[in-house]
């Protein structure tokens, strides 16, 4: 990978500018991967008129990139995982001929290249209104546009042999060679009109802002696919023997909002702020389109009061501030134009007539919903403090959100949506709050100096939680009592519910006397399912009530000291109340685990490691595992504590280089990142995945569902910084 950048900054009293040009090139793991990008930025500010009361800003930036990939993209490696173990499929046959089906050959079945342009223009005029001090008006127009051209060429594996003794290349069929070209255009226009006013009258400080913003977005795309290419040397749409498909579409979207804010304080002692939004959305019918949301907050810096200073000496309490606020925050629910009953054309065609002429079909696709903005009532209180001349300082905060107006069906009677037969159930906003979210956080820092040694200690801690408080309809009162989530956490993105397990089977006698799953308890080392409802069958799904992949509790501890130009610091970071999501293929749902399991299953029960407390069950063939259904151990405790950083720095200028005049400064540093990590014994991805970056998807095809991220990486950095 290479990257270079050049930038220039300058100007005069009336005009200033900044410009830069950058180039980046990144090579991939094979020659078929390549990425390069050119960026440019040009920012200018100009003050017009004699009194400089008009400011003109013009910013332009953009980039163009080329992304080259093999036809199958990253899928090549997934393809290569199936079948034989990769080392058993080298690029050549034993006779030296290139081998069909090898990873190398799979990389040479065409390309998937994207050429992209993006330009952003922002121009604004700001007028400092004369005669009224502190008032300014501005108008700006932002314009973002991007163009992509994607070209995908797919063809048979070329220049490879079917078998070691073949005398001809593997067959290449021109009809299988097809070229797909896709053009995409995006345009976003934003207009903003804003008035600002800020002025102090004695001890009264006042600021106000009013803003109107409108946005229009246009998107369109066109694509064509042709096939029949006798050669791979000229992959052009024009040259394909026959047209396969030719499609295109365009959409538009818009939004508008008014924003106002008023800030006032008296002598920095009493603070007040009120802000309001008035938002319009195209998801709602014209009479319900606009939502008004606002928030107010108050602050009181007690230590500014003379009576407080009299009561407690500023030596002990130098700063103490109370804060509080309440607000109504809007959330756009529903889909674009969902207030209309709409009809859409089917994808396919039906043929009628002697000549088999194609005909289109239209069907009802959306039944109108009656939605408006949903809202969340949010309360927050907090305080900031500084004691002992700020040697001890920090803050405490708490918040509570009541989320109201969630989408629910137009009726909360139970309905059979199957019998109803509508393409969708029309929806309204729930007239009550459906979930509650609250939390708190605090920080405490202490720093002091004893003689030549300075030391510091800091702790911060945060916790949040969210609970279901009410269902939006009777239909979500699940038919099984083990599914009721009222008062619980329905936040795991992948495994909110599943089958309950109780460890693993360690011996056959145990299994003989237990209730087994018909096909999945094929061996020891498989999980023991629990019959929750006592019906003699182990098929009881239940609601896990576990936290999600975002930790509810996070904390950090900093310890540091300095002495004569040396500075030493350690930083601990940790999280608890967090669940991981078992990624693919650790759930044994993909057969290539047979080839690659040896790398992944060191945390599993295996015949050579018959540990019933192992984090993972025994690897089993695809059809015999719980890979595609959920068991509670797929949502595991991913708490961790990390010694995130250890750093040692030394300021050379302080002593050694004190008298070297041509060097302004010189620092030496040594930093260890991710020095140590502790996880629970039950953490199943030890050595495979850093718990700080856990997967959060169930799909075996997407990056967020596969074992995509790296194991914890420890790094050592030795640094020298010189200032001349």
């Amino acid at each position, binding site marked *: 990978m290479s990257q270079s950048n050049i930038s220039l900054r300058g100007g005069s009293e009336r005009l200033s500018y900044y410009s830069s040009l950058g180039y980046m090139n990144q090579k991939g793991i094979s020659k078929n991967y390549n990425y390069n990008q050119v960026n440019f930025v040009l920012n200018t500010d100009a003050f*017009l*008129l004699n009194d400089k*009361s008009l400011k003109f800003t013009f910013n332009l930036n953009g980039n163009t990139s080329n992304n080259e990939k093999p036809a199958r993209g990253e899928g090549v490696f997934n393809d290569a995982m199936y079948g034989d173990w990769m080392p058993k499929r080298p690029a050549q046959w034993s006779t030296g001929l290139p081998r069909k089906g090898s990873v190398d050959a799979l990389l040479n079945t065409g390309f998937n290249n994207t050429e992209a342009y993006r330009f952003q223009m922002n121009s604004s*005029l700001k*007028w400092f209104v*004369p005669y009224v001090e502190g008032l300014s008006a501005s*108008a700006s*127009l932002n314009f973002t546009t991007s163009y992509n051209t994607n070209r995908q060429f797919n063809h048979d594996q070329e220049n490879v042999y079917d*078998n070691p003794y*073949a*005398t*001809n290349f593997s*067959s290449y*069929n*021109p*009809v299988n060679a097809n070229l797909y070209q896709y053009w995409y255009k995006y345009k976003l226009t934003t*207009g903003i009109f804003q008035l600002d006013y800020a002025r102090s009258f004695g001890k009264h400080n006042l600021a106000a802002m009013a803003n*109107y913003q*409108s*946005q*229009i977005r246009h998107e369109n795309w066109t694509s064509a696919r042709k096939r029949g290419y006798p050669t791979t040397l000229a992959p052009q749409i024009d040259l394909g023997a026959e047209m*396969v498909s030719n499609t295109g579409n365009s*959409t*538009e*979207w*818009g939004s508008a909002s008014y924003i106002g804010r008023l800030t006032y304080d008296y002598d920095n002692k009493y603070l007040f702020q009120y802000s309001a939004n008035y938002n319009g959305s*195209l998801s709602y019918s014209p009479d319900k389109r606009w939502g008004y949301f606002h928030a107010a907050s108050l602050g009181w810096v007690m230590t500014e009061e003379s009576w407080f200073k009299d009561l407690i000496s500023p030596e002990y309490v130098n700063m103490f501030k109370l804060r509080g606020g309440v607000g109504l925050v809007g959330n756009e629910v529903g889909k*674009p*134009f969902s207030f*209309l*009953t*709409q*009809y859409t054309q089917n994808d*396919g065609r*039906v*043929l*009628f007539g*002697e000549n*088999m002429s*194609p005909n*289109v*079909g*239209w*069907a*009802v*696709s959306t039944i109108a919903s009656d939605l408006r903005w949903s809202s969340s009532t949010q309360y927050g209180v907090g305080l900031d403090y500084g004691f002992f001349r700020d040697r001890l300082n920090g803050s405490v905060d708490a918040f509570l959100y009541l989320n109201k107006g969630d989408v629910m069906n137009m*009726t909360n009677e*139970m*309905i*059979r*949506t*199957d*019998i*109803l*037969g*509508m393409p969708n*159930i*029309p929806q309204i906003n729930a007239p009550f709050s459906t979930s509650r979210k609250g939390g708190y956080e605090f920080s405490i820092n202490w720093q002091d100096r004893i003689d030549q040694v300075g030391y510091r200690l800091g702790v911060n801690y945060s916790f949040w939680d969210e609970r279901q408080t009410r269902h939006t309809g009777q239909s979500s009162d699940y*038919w099984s009592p083990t599914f009721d989530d009222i008062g619980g956490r329905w936040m795991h993105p992948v495994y909110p519910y599943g089958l309950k397990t109780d460890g693993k089977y360690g011996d056959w006698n145990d299994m003989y006397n237990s209730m087994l799953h018909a096909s999945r308890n094929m061996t020891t080392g498989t999980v023991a399912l629990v019959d929750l409802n006592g019906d003699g069958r182990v*098929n009881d799904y239940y609601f896990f009530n576990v936290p999600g992949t975002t930790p509810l509790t996070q904390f950090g501890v900093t310890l540091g000291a300095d002495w004569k130009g040396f500075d030493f610091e350690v930083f601990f970071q940790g999280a608890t109340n967090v669940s991981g999501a078992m990624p693919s293929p650790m759930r044994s749902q993909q057969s290539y685990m047979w080839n690659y399991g040896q790398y992944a299953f060191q945390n599993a029960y295996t015949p050579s490691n018959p540990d019933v407390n192992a984090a993972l069950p025994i690897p089993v063939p695809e059809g015999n595992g719980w890979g595609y259904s959920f068991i509670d151990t797929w949502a595991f405790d991913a708490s961790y504590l990390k010694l995130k950083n250890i750093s040692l720095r030394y300021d050379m200028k302080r002593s050694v280089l004190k008298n070297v005049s041509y060097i302004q400064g010189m620092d030496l540093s040594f930093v260890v990142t991710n020095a140590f990590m502790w996880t629970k014994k039950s953490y199943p991805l030890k050595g495979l995945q850093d718990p700080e970056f856990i997967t959060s998807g169930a799909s075996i095809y997407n990056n967020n569902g596969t074992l995509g991220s790296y194991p914890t990486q420890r790094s050592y950095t030795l640094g020298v910084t010189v200032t001349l």
Partner: protein
Amino acid sequence: MKHKIYRFIMAGVFLVSLIGISTACDPLGIEPTTQVDEDRFWTNPQLARSYVNSYYFWTQSASSDTFQSEQWSDNAQGNAEQDWNTYRQESFNKRQYDENSGIIGFSAPWADAYKKVYNVNLGIEKINSSDAISENLKNQLLAESHFFRAFVYFDMIKFWGTVPYVDRALTIDDETYLPQTEREVVFDNILSDLNESVKYFEGFSGRPEVGLINKDVATAFISRVALYAANAADASAKNLYSDDAKGLFKFEKNSQHYYQIAYNAAKSLIGKYSLEENYADLFTSTNAHMSSESIWPVMFKENQRGGFNPTSKNGPDYLYYGGTEAASYSWNLRSGLFPTQDLVDAYLQKDEVDGQWKNWWETSQAQAMGVTINEDGEIEGESANYRDMFANRDARFYATVTYDGAYMGPEEERYSIQTWIDNTDPANTLRYSALHTGYRFVDRMDVAPINRASAQTITGYYSRKYSQFNNFNNDGTLNWGIQRQTTFFNIRYAEVLLNAAEAGIKLGQSDAVQYINEIRNRAGLDNFTGSDLYEEMKLQRRLEFAFEAPGFRYFDLLRWGEAEGKTTIEELNQPSRGIWIFRKGVESLVVGQNGYPVQPGEEGYFTPRFETFSVPYSVYGRKFDNSRYYFVPFSATTLKDYSQLQQNPGWTNFDYNN
């Protein structure tokens, strides 16, 4: 002063630009660009026409070329392999059900069907109330709408027996916990919708295009539905379903009532159409939709409409014959839908000596081959001329089945299909001889072939209907990926004849035999001289429509079984049969050196031997030994919430874990 003017000008520019920005974009005035809102939709007659067009996407197997119901029948043996894009019937055939999800891997039309019902009901209401649609067009659109409502319900009750009948577009405030409607009422509603359709067509002055529903389609459909209703009435009369507390399966009217409806409807079409002279043309001609036999064709054409292209499935997966080391090619077809020996046995053969049509194992040709029947009732023989058994058969055999020695393409060696097996060296895996059989491991012929081998035949035959051998690659291989210009018939005239015959037999009408003879004669057979015309009608129906989309056989067996009060349907309660043909092949590991059967006099030659057999693998089993299997069960999950439904007969307290 100058300074002030300058300032005014600038302020003016500023204001104008503001006004420009705020008026140029009216962000909330945007309208959808890819959809049409309801108010405007129904003011446009073309859109109303398109709305009705969308019903045509619902015809069976139009969405894909699965011959699903055919593989449930005794005509076909499907492929057990789960991974290929072919046909999966194991759990269906073996009646493996799950209490919570019904048949494993299959769902009978339910929620999707009610979506269609909603669409039709909405269409009927909106078309009726639209001012923009002319009276004439309204008649056509309403005729089609009523037809399709009947079509959807008919599809549902084939699986469920009976369902809740909804005849208007429900709103969110309507009661949706609806109980099932009596089966007889659903049948009557379907028939009355079809009559309604006929009536609307009578008020329509135009001539519907080919492929659209017309009066004849609706009339022919009446005869089809009425036959099913007659059988259901007989089932009721025979008390087939005792476990029916609400009496949902009870009929007031007798079967004669429905046979009369079927007979009258079919009879009214007799003579309006005629059978295509050459049976095979119905499936291989690109112009089949214009055939004199075509009543309701469903058409497919490259780049216009895909989804039905059996050419890309019918046939073997493995190598073409005559490959060389330098160039060998594979068929790469993943059929997994193989004609059974039972079906092949049903196609009669013309005796070379007396010119009579007989079972193939009873002709003088068979005697010449030394055909015998063993103690299991299977047919055995040994002859160098064993392929005579496939000669001089019913013309429909050649349009339906690809057999050992048949060609898939011109009559050149490379297009020949050879399904014999070389069993002389059980230790050796067959590779380059016997290219098109599924038996690769001859020491384990009682084990189901897996992976790609399962796309090769285990019965000895490949399906053939609709295959068009008319597009080849430069290297001579069949270009099967291209969607052929092809047609399947939701209704063709042969069905009208057979419907008339079936109802006629039951009503004692004397014209029944002439309709059956018409069918027989087109296939090359002579007139029927036997005694049991009803059984002959069943046989002709089987042969006429084997491997056709939409499939007839499975549902025919079910409805006839119901009418006869059967709790066991033998045809669906036993494994399929196939044929093993044993020959010596030249075997080598090198492509191209061989691939041929050993000729007489060459090393290892023995006289080819054949025997029919019952497929031994458990995965290919079939079960129908209880009347509960006529209908699919409602899942426990559904019934828990939807207590207004009555579980289908025989399923209450059924032990699913057994």
